[in-house]
């Protein structure tokens, strides 16, 4: 309550007191006028009556007012979210009834809010459990397709013609895209649930970068992209190898996807005083300014991105950002990418305006001290139950 309000508000008890005084003064004058008597007698009478009235009114009104003030305070507490408070009263009068009604209302509210919160949690858990369940169930047929196409590709099931091999390679590649999507969905659902696990162990960061990069060599070759790599030497760092690879795969994948034929990618993994500093620049289509604030948002896909790659999930950068930030690192980007554009200026000048690409550079830091372990809590009891019911 503000000072002004506190100072000028007249309490209910004061009003009652005032009314009593006015009425008793008028009554006394009337009585004195009718009965007659000296001024001294009248003065004594007025003093006695005033004193009695004052004490009586003060006790009654204070009691009444205190109950209302208590009530007001409880309502304030309730407004602040404390629904478990109750008023204790033995009163049978109107104030007592009001207090009991309020207690009852608070009980109902408390139950209602509890039900709402638990419903919300239940829904949220059901949603993420569904994603998790679906993803795990999808992995079984995906692994079967992966292993059998792998079987065919390795020549274990007999020799294939070039054309047949090309088809099987396509099956293998598309299936791998689905596997990556399912893994991203699982990672995103774990991030949302807060059950994302970080398991750091001594990891060769350059080996992870190379493993990730090797996945894209065929595409880099196909698109005749000029790749430039610069690696510093690192001792093994305490990183989660799977998560480190997810970071590399996603940023490399984006650079390769969005760089046109004959473009250039520059990939740097450097050691600074405190961090692993990763920088990947491309001469790709770039990120339009109006889309830049949204690119780390879950499921967001830019207009140009949709045109170039129709079936992207919009999960990659969301997952990468979560991993990097949970590891104590930072991720940011620059588009147009100044570095490569300056290097390629000569060529860019020869291109018609609408063909010029803006390019993008992503920057990531991960602390050299490594990632902090984080345990998940997700239990997959539902999965076990489903499997059991399948057997029955």
């Amino acid at each position, binding site marked *: 309550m503000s000072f002004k309000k506190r100072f000028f508000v007249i309490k209910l008890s004061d009003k009652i007191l005032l009314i009593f005084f006015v009425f008793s003064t008028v009554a006394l004058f009337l009585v004195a006028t009718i009965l007659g008597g000296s001024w001294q007698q009248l003065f004594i009478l007025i003093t006695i009556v005033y004193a009695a009235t004052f004490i009586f009114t003060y006790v009654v009104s204070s009691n009444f007012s205190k109950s209302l003030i208590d009530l007001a305070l409880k309502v304030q507490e309730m407004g602040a979210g404390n629904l478990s408070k109750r008023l204790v009263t033995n009163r049978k009068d109107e104030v007592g009834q009001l207090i009991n009604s309020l207690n009852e209302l608070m009980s109902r509210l408390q139950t209602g809010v509890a039900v709402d919160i638990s419903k919300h949690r239940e829904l949220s858990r059901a949603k993420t459990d569904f994603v998790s369940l679906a993803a795990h169930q999808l*992995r079984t047929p995906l*692994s*079967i397709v*992966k292993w059998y196409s792998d079987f065919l590709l390795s020549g*274990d099931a007999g020799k294939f013609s070039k054309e047949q091999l090309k088809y099987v390679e396509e099956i293998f590649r598309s299936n791998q895209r689905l596997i990556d999507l*399912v893994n991203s969905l699982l990672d995103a659902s774990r991030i949302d649930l807060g059950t994302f696990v970080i398991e750091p162990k001594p990891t060769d960061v350059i080996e992870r970068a190379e493993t990730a990069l090797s996945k894209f060599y065929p595409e880099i070759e196909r698109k005749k992209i000029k790749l430039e790599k610069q690696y510093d030497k690192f001792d093994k760092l305490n990183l989660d190898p799977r998560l480190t690879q997810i970071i590399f795969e996603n940023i490399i994948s984006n650079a390769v996807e969005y760089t046109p034929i004959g473009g250039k990618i520059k990939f740097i993994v450097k050691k600074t005083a405190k961090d692993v500093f990763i920088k990947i620049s491309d001469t790709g289509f770039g990120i339009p300014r109006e889309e830049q604030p949204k690119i780390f948002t879950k499921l967001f896909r830019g207009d140009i991105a949709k045109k170039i790659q129709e079936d992207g999930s919009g999960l990659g950068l969301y997952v990468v950002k979560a991993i990097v930030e949970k590891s104590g690192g930072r991720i940011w980007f620059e588009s147009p990418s100044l570095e490569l554009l300056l290097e390629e200026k000569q060529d860019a000048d020869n291109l018609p305006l609408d063909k010029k690409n803006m390019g993008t550079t992503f920057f990531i830091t991960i602390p050299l001290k490594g990632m902090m372990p984080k*345990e998940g809590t*997700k239990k*997959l009891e539902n999965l076990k139950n489903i499997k059991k019911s399948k057997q029955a």
Partner: protein
Amino acid sequence: MSEKAKKILIAEDEEAMLEALASKFEKRGFAVIRAHDGEEGYSLAIKEKPDLLILDILMPKMNGMDLMEKIRQDDRWGADVPIVMLTNISDPENVSRAAICKVYDFLVKTDWRLDDVVKLAEDKLAFPEA
């Protein structure tokens, strides 16, 4: 099959996966013992005492985690035999249970090519202390 062939037990209830894995190992000269559920896996493991076990987790009758723990309770052979969990469930609870039982590795099926799974087993059997 030569007498020196290393024995691998694969417990996997999905027939297609079991066959893909088993054929790959057999082509590389391993003797493969196929189990289609956890209980069969346990009885065959105790009887055949394979050199390495590859276990799925979600299986009928007994799941792979319970099978793993039961094998580890066998003092003479099961306590040290290399176990690889090969599953599509990578939740932390199972991973930590497997770590307590000192499994050699915990692999997610979709992340691994068959040749790499075989190579992992070959490496472990060639260098048991690794």
